[in-house]
Structure formats: C-alpha cells, structure tokens
C-alpha cells in the first residue's frame, strides 16, 4: 500500500510509521526532515512550504512505483509532507517504508527522500530574523 499525503497539520512519526507496519514485515525504516534553526548565521524563525499539489501527489506516486520496481519486497510506503508554516524542530516530511528484511526498507527510504527532493514540486521559503526571506533550492 502507498500512503501519500500533503497536509497543513502537524506530522506524527508514530502515525506515519503505524501505516506501514505489517505482520509479515520485520523492518520499518523512517526518514524525518525537520526544520533547522539557522542558516549561514541567520536565525530561522520558521519555514513556509507550498506545493503544486496535484502534480506533487502524482510525482510521489511515481516514486512509489519506482521503489516497487527496484525493491519488490517492499510492503508499505508512506510519504507525508507538511505544507504552510512549519515551526523549528517540527517535521516537514516523514517517509516510512516497511519490508520483511531490513536492507530493502533502508535503501528504499533513502531513495524516496532523494527522489522527493529532486522531483516533487514542493517549495520552501525560509523566514529569518532580521533578514529577507529566501526561497530555498535543493542542492544536496
């Protein structure tokens, strides 16, 4: 099962993790992206996320399809991304993947976050204390 969501609500690691847990799976690997409180010496007050929602969900679905081709043993995939204001320390994205054995879910979750950063139309604006806000660009 694929669980994909764009939401303005606070994300919960437990909730996203629980979606993919399965009796037949011994491993759940999870990635949580959180808001850093500084960038080049500037204090980050909060982040604002926006998405081209319909295209983002399509693109997330396509990541899931790629995962299932690369790691057929993967069972559940959950990709939850928060939109709107995200305060420091809170999660902007949570990805959880379950599989019978650990290697598949570990590799798949790593693939998912890399793909999400490079392909899913979501944008982040960093709001600083005493400096102009900046639309970020993923470079990693």
């Amino acid at each position, binding site marked *: 099962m694929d669980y994909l969501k764009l939401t303005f609500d606070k994300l919960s690691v437990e909730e996203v993790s629980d979606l993919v847990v399965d009796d037949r799976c011994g491993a759940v690997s999870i990635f949580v992206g959180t808001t850093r409180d500084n960038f080049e010496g500037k204090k980050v007050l909060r982040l604002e996320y926006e998405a*081209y929602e319909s295209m983002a969900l399509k693109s997330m679905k396509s990541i899931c399809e790629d995962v299932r081709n690369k790691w057929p043993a993967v069972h559940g995939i959950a990709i939850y991304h928060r939109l709107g204001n995200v305060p420091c320390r809170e999660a902007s994205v949570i990805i959880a993947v379950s599989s019978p054995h650990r290697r598949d879910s570990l590799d798949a979750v790593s693939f998912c976050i890399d793909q*999400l*950063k490079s392909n899913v139309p979501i944008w982040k604006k960093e709001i600083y204390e005493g400096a102009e806000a900046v639309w970020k*660009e993923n470079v990693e």
Partner: protein
Amino acid sequence: MEIENVVQVKVLFFARSKELAGLRETTLSLPTKINYEQLLNIIAVNFNLESIKNNILLAKNEEVCSENRDIEISESDNIAVIPPLSGG
C-alpha cells in the same frame, strides 16, 4: 498566429515565480503548437519572470515539458511555472 489556432490555457505560478508574477494563476492565449523556448519567453515577458527565466521549468498538465521540443497545446491545458524545488 491565426485566430482559429489559438486556445486558452491556464497558467499556474508557484513560489518565487508567484511572487514575481504577483498572481497564483491566470489565463493566456497560445497557439496550438509552440516551441518550448518561445513559450518560456512569452511567459517570462508577460509575467515579470525574466530574472529567473533560466532557472524555471515548464510543466504541461502536471508533466515537465522537454526543452527544445514543440509543445502541443489544447484548450484547457494547464501550464505551470516550476522554480527550483526545495521540498523535503
């Protein structure tokens, strides 16, 4: 462009492009066939996006368009301006 070959499309702006254009979406009249570069120029000129023209992609109906190719445009297509991504 002859008038019978012109269709109305919706144009969507996000992030920095939304701020520069000053709007979230609008409509635009386009020929039914257009080169990627031409379309990019029309959008950049009309919506104050020349400063970021080299850093944006265009998507048609939620699929990124290939550059250096002709794009077929139909009535009620959505064209989206996609600035550099920063999700995650």
